[in-house]
């Protein structure tokens, strides 16, 4: 990898990043107002593009099936039945939708937390210890990052079915506990952010090796942890092929698979359009809020991640 020199500068880069805002302000001063208007208008038009599907789902979740087809998709229909629709979503099929939501939270929540911990521990070990086999592990895991997850999904299914854990929570959860990308991020971050002297000092104080990791290194690795956690959370939350292959029981579905299930029924039963639209709204809103809130952290973490190449 080419970027060892840049990685050493990570903390320095952060310091610089902190000073950029004042720099932006000083550059702003000399700009013509017409440029500002043109650029802002351009960005606003582009923003429309990113918002159209979200806008559509907000508007159309309020409609009856009849209005959905009969009235313009860009404005409210004659009936306003948002709450009836959402009620139908939540109660359909014996309240299966909330259950999908809980499943998604379980897969993504537990999966990302555990994956982050495991990946960080492993990444830290690779960064802070010199031991035989280290290079081999590195190369092996690098291969893992580059092989598409979906190519592994099928053989994984055959493996899991031979040990009898397909169609269980485990079948989706276990593969979600692995984040090769997280390992890389953690190891690169750890080599820059955890000084050897600190670990040596800890050893002299009689702290055990695991204690060194948990009590001294982990606090230093928080920015990397946040990035890995978010990255893995989104990856599991978005996953489609793995649960599709593994799960047969609707009650184990994550929200993505469940909504797809409903959408598939719109062909024959138009009332499922309303359920799908309402369900999409319910699953988009919390995510949108989460993304907006976490965007700050994300940026901070990625500053480190991106430098690593």
């Amino acid at each position: 990898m080419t970027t060892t020199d840049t990685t050493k500068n990570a903390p320095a880069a952060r310091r610089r990043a902190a000073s950029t805002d004042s720099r932006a302000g000083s550059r702003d001063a000399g700009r013509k107002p017409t440029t500002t208007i043109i650029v802002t208008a351009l960005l606003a038009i582009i923003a429309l593009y990113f918002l159209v599907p979200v806008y559509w789902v907000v508007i159309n979740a309020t409609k009856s099936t009849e209005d959905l087809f009969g009235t313009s998709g860009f404005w409210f229909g004659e009936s306003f039945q948002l709450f009836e629709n959402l009620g139908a979503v939540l109660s359909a099929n014996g309240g299966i939708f909330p259950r999908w939501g809980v499943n998604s939270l379980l897969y993504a929540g537990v999966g990302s937390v555990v994956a982050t911990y495991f990946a960080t521990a492993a990444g830290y070990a690779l960064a802070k210890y010199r031991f035989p086999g280290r290079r081999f592990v590195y190369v092996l895991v690098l291969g893992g990052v580059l092989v598409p997850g979906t190519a592994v999904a099928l053989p994984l299914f055959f493996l899991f079915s031979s040990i009898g854990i397909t169609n269980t929570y485990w079948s989706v959860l276990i593969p979600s506990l692995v984040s090769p990308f997280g390992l890389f991020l953690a190891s690169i971050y750890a080599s820059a952010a955890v000084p050897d002297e600190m670990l040596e000092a800890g050893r002299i104080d009689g702290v055990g090796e695991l204690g060194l990791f948990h009590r001294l290194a982990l606090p230093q690795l928080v920015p990397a942890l946040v990035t890995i956690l978010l990255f893995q959370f989104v990856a599991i939350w978005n996953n489609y092929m793995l649960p599709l292959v593994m799960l047969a029981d609707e009650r184990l579905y994550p929200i993505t698979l469940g909504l797809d299930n409903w959408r598939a029924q719109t062909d024959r039963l138009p009332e499922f359009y309303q359920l799908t639209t309402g369900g999409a709204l319910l699953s988009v809103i919390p995510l949108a809020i989460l993304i907006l809130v976490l965007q700050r952290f994300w940026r901070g973490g990625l500053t480190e991640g991106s430098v690593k190449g």
Partner: protein
Amino acid sequence: MRSKTAPWVLLAPFLVLFIGTMIIPIIMAIGYSFTRVERSGLLGEAGTESTFAGLSNYIAALTNVNFIESIGRMILFGVVQVTVMIVAATVLALLLESAAAKWPGFFRATYFLPYGIPGVIATILWSFLYVPGLSPIVDVLQVVGINIDFLGPNMVLWSIANIVTWTYTGYNMLIIIAQLKSIPGELYEAAKIDGASSFRVAMAIQLPLIRPALMLTIIFSIIGTLQLFAEPRLLQTMSAGITSEYTPNMSAYAFAFQYNDVGMAAAQAVIIAVAAFTLSAIALGISSWTEKRR
């Protein structure tokens, strides 16, 4: 002494899971890809046995027109979509960082928003915007006199590209912004003293310095392209243009669960994995080569 076992203790949970969920399945896939099934009776009811197939599954996969077409389709898709997306992400990042616009925080958040929406849900939303009769976009275009069938056989690939671009542009933009923020302010000051225009600053200072970030986004995008599965699979029921073997991944899935040909499915999965691996390795190689020459 303890520090010799410690790294393995720390590595163990990750490695066990990594081997169990990636290495063993890959070995299994390689194993399957060299087998075929012999059946006796009209439907194999009189017995089946697995036999060594040599390279026949690979030969069959690589001479299967649909599979080759699906790979070609993904290459075309990747070249166009990844280019459009990276250019868009870079331009947006430069515009937002140029401080020429008002409310950059709002725009940044808006562009990033789709990343939080799973591909499946993004596809459901966009599909409603593609379907004639439901889509206000199609209605509006018709009023203007443009008749586009977003789900038509030739158009649907680009409709999928649009969904992917919509989802990931903001994410890539954030990576690039992060990189731009790490450019030392002194460089800008120097450029300002030289009287360089914003465009010159972008071309001469910003673009070369964000090359590592661009490389990263391109690599992830290439891997993403080869993984394409959810979007076309969901649109399959709505578009005549999407077959069961539309993308390499869909093809492997179809062979495994619909066509009763696990050996072929495994061979295809291996080919996909090798292709992704090779492409990414080449991209990494080119990137480190150009870095060294700099």
